[in-house]
């Protein structure tokens, strides 16, 4: 009996794996079921599931979207990657032009190498100067971006007690109070930085990796957005998430009556809309121990549920370790292009 044909694909950590049709279909089914169970959302249709199998197994190192289905791109710390990550000694305004005129980006953000608003606060006017230079030279939209990164507000570097220390000690009320205090500090810092960026005419403002420190971190982005919409109505805001699920580090925080802990993307996006953001950056985590077919099926199920209810554009955060992209530094174009195609054609995203 001849051996079954096997297809090249990858695991969530990027390592190569060869799978039979039967194995791929089984993993796609499992991935969908996992998303349905966790998110309490609808599964992909039979047609979408079949098309996903085709995308996973289609020939070619690199695949592309059907003509007419092209989408736009936004970034996080985009302009800084050429210098900080690649070690090329260029300024960030130059990096922005490289993104526009060499790499063909649709937008990019100017961000500090220590990509968080608490750090940026001290150099905000200098950061605004870099953005101003870039805004004069670039045609595409330029954001200023950073993370709320609430963990940076804890002692000894920050002003409030560390809830990650208090919680294991059983000091629940103290941990909750510390997070609430940190929210106020972070919102104030973000709005201050936003004012400097609005003063030089930022085309957009990015709150990246929101919710990284849990529900209080997500609340920071929502509250700050609400204030910025009021104070700087001509500076659009993008909120990108840290993960598929808002961790309940506090557990009782609410925004407009909705408890934040435990929210999946299709509910996160509704709060982001209420806060007044223009674009929502959806995130679904990659499981390193599962195959690409399992991961991308799960991702598409979550993302489709999100875009189906969203009234604002949704950009999938398709970088290392999220939205089907493997958790590795040098990303393989084979599964990255397949993830992008699936996100666009099945997940119905508006951008990457």
């Amino acid at each position, binding site marked *: 009996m001849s051996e079954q044909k096997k297809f090249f694909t990858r695991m969530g950590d990027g390592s190569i794996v060869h799978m039979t049709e039967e194995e791929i279909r089984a993993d796609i089914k499992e991935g969908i079921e996992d998303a349905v169970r966790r998110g309490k959302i609808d599964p992909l249709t039979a047609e979408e599931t079949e098309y996903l199998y085709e995308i996973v197994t289609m020939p070619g190192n690199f695949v592309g979207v059907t*003509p*007419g289905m*092209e*989408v*736009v*791109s*936004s970034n996080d710390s985009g302009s800084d990657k050429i210098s900080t990550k690649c070690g090329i000694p260029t300024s960030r305004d130059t990096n922005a032009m490289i993104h*526009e*005129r*060499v790499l063909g980006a*649709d*937008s990019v953000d100017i961000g500090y190498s220590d990509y968080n608003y608490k750090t940026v606060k001290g150099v905000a006017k200098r950061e605004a100067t870099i953005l101003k230079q870039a*805004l*004069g*030279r*670039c*045609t*595409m*939209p*330029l954001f200023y971006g950073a993370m709320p990164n609430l963990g940076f507000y804890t002692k000894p570097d920050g002003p409030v007690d560390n809830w990650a220390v208090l919680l294991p000690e059983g000091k629940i009320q103290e941990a909750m109070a510390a997070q609430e205090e940190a929210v106020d500090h972070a919102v104030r810092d973000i709005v201050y930085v936003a004012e400097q960026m*609005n*003063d*030089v*005419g*930022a*085309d*957009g403002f990015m709150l990246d990796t929101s919710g990284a420190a849990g529900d209080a971190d997500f609340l920071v982005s929502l509250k700050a957005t609400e204030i910025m919409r009021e104070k700087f109505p*001509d*500076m*659009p805001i993008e909120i990108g998430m840290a993960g598929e699920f808002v961790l309940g580090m506090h557990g009782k925080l609410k925004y407009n009556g909705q408890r934040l802990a435990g929210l999946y993307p299709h509910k996160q996006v509704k709060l982001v809309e209420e806060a007044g953001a*223009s*674009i929502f950056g959806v995130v679904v985590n990659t499981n390193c121990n599962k195959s690409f077919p399992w991961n991308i099926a799960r991702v598409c199920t979550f993302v489709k549920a999100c875009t189906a209810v*969203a*009234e*604002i*554009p949704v950009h999938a955060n398709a970088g290392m370790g999220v939205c089907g992209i493997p958790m590795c530094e040098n990303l393989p174009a084979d599964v990255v292009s397949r993830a992008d195609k699936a996100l666009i054609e099945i997940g119905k*995203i*508006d*951008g990457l």
Partner: protein
Amino acid sequence: MRLQLAKKMKINEAKAYVAEKLGVSLEELCDIVTMSEKREELGLGLAHVEPCAGANAGMEAKFRIQELLGIKINSVERFKERAGLK
């Protein structure tokens, strides 16, 4: 991207809006040859094509994009304020 930011339009609505304003089809909107000519003709920014001495780029292109698309671009408005144009 500009329409997603300024008017919170989803991708298909934004493409249709821009295509109509530019007088191109949706297929042409995603075509590099058509759009290079269109951008040059309308002065919407073409700084990567040689010779580019006469091409618009940066703020000058954004002025035209704002007018053509009927949207408000924050950087253009701030430039006008600082240059005493408004």
